[in-house]
């Protein structure tokens, strides 16, 4: 039985994250960390599909910096989710930022960045408000950012601006009942001084999902492994601790297979 074909049977990932049948996410901020060897983009596709196909009224605000709409449309179509249709129904607010550049000009550079980010934030805010006004059923809204490192490049390396922007988005999640999923690359932040953005993101997030290649190298049947860190799980004695899940995955056209190491055959 293929779990990805029948959404009613939760797969390992959804179980580990505590995702139920409904569209609501049990986190405020989720951080996906990937690396050059193993892209984490498939997780965004997974969350996108879940949010849109959930019973009830889920809505997604998608900030696409990495690919044009046609890419996501084709990928999601194979997973059984028609993005064009969802966009027309106003369930998906697709913000195409492939060519996003903030005008940086001389002295006013800093200001231009701020203006640019405020504009972007307002776009998100409008989309979220439009979605939450549309139905009073309290549908869950997800904001997905693909990906933060490109936002950094657009901001010309100004970490503080990116952090401010993300902080604003995080505030949205508690004010307007929505969740935030961001993708970032872990391996970019290898040296000490550059780690600020990643550690800040790490602090903001309730769930961290890491994709890594297999230690043994490339394999045909296993594409990599996932580490899921659920933060702030309270134990019986009241202490806060992180709950960690580990398993492997294989990416397919119509979804992803998740399995424990060695249990596939």
């Amino acid at each position: 039985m293929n779990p990805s074909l029948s959404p009613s049977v939760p797969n390992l990932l959804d179980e580990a994250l505590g995702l139920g049948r409904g569209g609501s996410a049990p986190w405020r901020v989720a951080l996906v960390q990937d690396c050059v060897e193993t892209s984490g983009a498939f997780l965004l596709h997974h969350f996108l599909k879940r949010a849109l196909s959930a019973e009830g009224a889920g809505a997604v605000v998608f900030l696409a910096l990495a690919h044009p709409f046609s890419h996501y449309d084709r990928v999601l179509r194979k997973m059984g989710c028609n993005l064009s249709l969802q966009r027309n129904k106003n369930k998906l607010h697709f913000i195409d930022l492939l060519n996003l550049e903030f005008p940086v000009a001389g002295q006013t550079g800093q200001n231009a960045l701020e203006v640019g980010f405020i504009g972007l934030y307002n776009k998100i805010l409008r989309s979220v408000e439009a979605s939450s006004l549309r139905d009073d059923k309290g549908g869950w809204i997800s904001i997905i950012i693909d990906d933060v490192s490109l936002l950094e490049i657009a901001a010309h390396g100004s970490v503080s601006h990116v952090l401010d922007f993300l902080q604003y988005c995080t505030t949205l999640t508690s004010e307007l009942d929505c969740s935030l999923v961001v993708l970032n690359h872990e391996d970019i932040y290898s040296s000490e001084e550059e780690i600020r953005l990643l550690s800040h993101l790490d602090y903001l997030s309730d769930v961290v999902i890491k994709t890594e290649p297999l230690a043994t190298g490339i394999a045909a049947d296993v594409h990599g492994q996932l580490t899921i860190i659920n933060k702030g799980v309270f134990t019986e004695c009241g202490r806060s601790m992180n709950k960690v899940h580990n398993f492997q995955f294989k990416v397919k056209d119509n979804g992803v297979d998740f399995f424990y190491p060695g249990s596939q055959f």
Partner: protein
Amino acid sequence: MATAADGQPRTTRTPTTSSFSRASSSPSAALHMPPNAGVKLGPNGAAFVSSGIPDLDRILGGGFLLGSLVMVMEDSDAPHHLLLLRNFMSQGIVHRQPILFASPLREPRAFLGTLPSPVSSSKAHSKRAIVDPNQQEQEKGLRIAWQYKKYFGEQQASQIHDRDVKQEFSNDFDLRKPLERRLVQNIECISIQDTPELAILRDRCSSFLSTLPRSDGGNLNAGRIAIQSFCSPQCGYSEMDWDMVAFIRFLRSIVRSSNAVAVLTFPSSYLPPSFLKRWQHLADTLLSVRAIPDEDKELAKLLTGYQDMLGFLHVHKVAQMNTQVKENSWFSFVSSFLFSLFFSTNNPFFF
């Protein structure tokens, strides 16, 4: 039959209109003979252009994806990346595709003199295909090392089926024989030496690509951008890390929305580690070349034909457009390939 039909437009190269009218008059013929030989359509709405190395095309699942950015990490000690660039550009010339070449050389046109010419004219190719397909199979210029040959088995059938199309799609090149001067006249060249203003290169790329709007299916005309040693010291881009990475992102996004492939080689050792990773993330297809040291006893024991081998070609990443799966069965098995060149024979041999 298909071979003969294919041969025709090639021998009479100039009237592109004739192949166009043929295609429109008989749709079945159009299926067998793509209107543009330089572009091959693949699954998921993908279109490929050849890298100029038939075996590399196969490894990458068909060639370089139209609309993708290919980045090649150079070996700091050896100029093997130039082989990839040369074949890439020569293949573009053979297909009469517009090319933009940027180089840190003072006089980039000088590099064009080193572009290899195809091993034999396409006419001779199609003739030979009719005479003896087996012989042609043996003479295939670029080969993968025997270690990996068994993986070819499953694809063999479709290969034979595609052969007539493939012959046109990618050629073998003779590195000793330079292309005729008049053929390389049309290549746009730009020197990026001592031009700390990346805006110039930006403008050239976008004006070049503006003539090649994205069109899915139909009569595709593909363009090629080749950028050599992008961040090398003679470019004078020091302290411009963010500008460079912004340029690459810009290049990636404009190539994505046009019918073109950009190949960019860069000396990875000049980049700070965190930026190197950023660059790698930006690449749609990521390759690296590494020379084999001359007197490596260990390797010599491991490899047959060690004397003739030049280096390793690593495939780190294959472009995934409109899909989330690595469709390429090759890449899932092995990610590094040996290649070698024989200057003594006609063809460059890649293993």
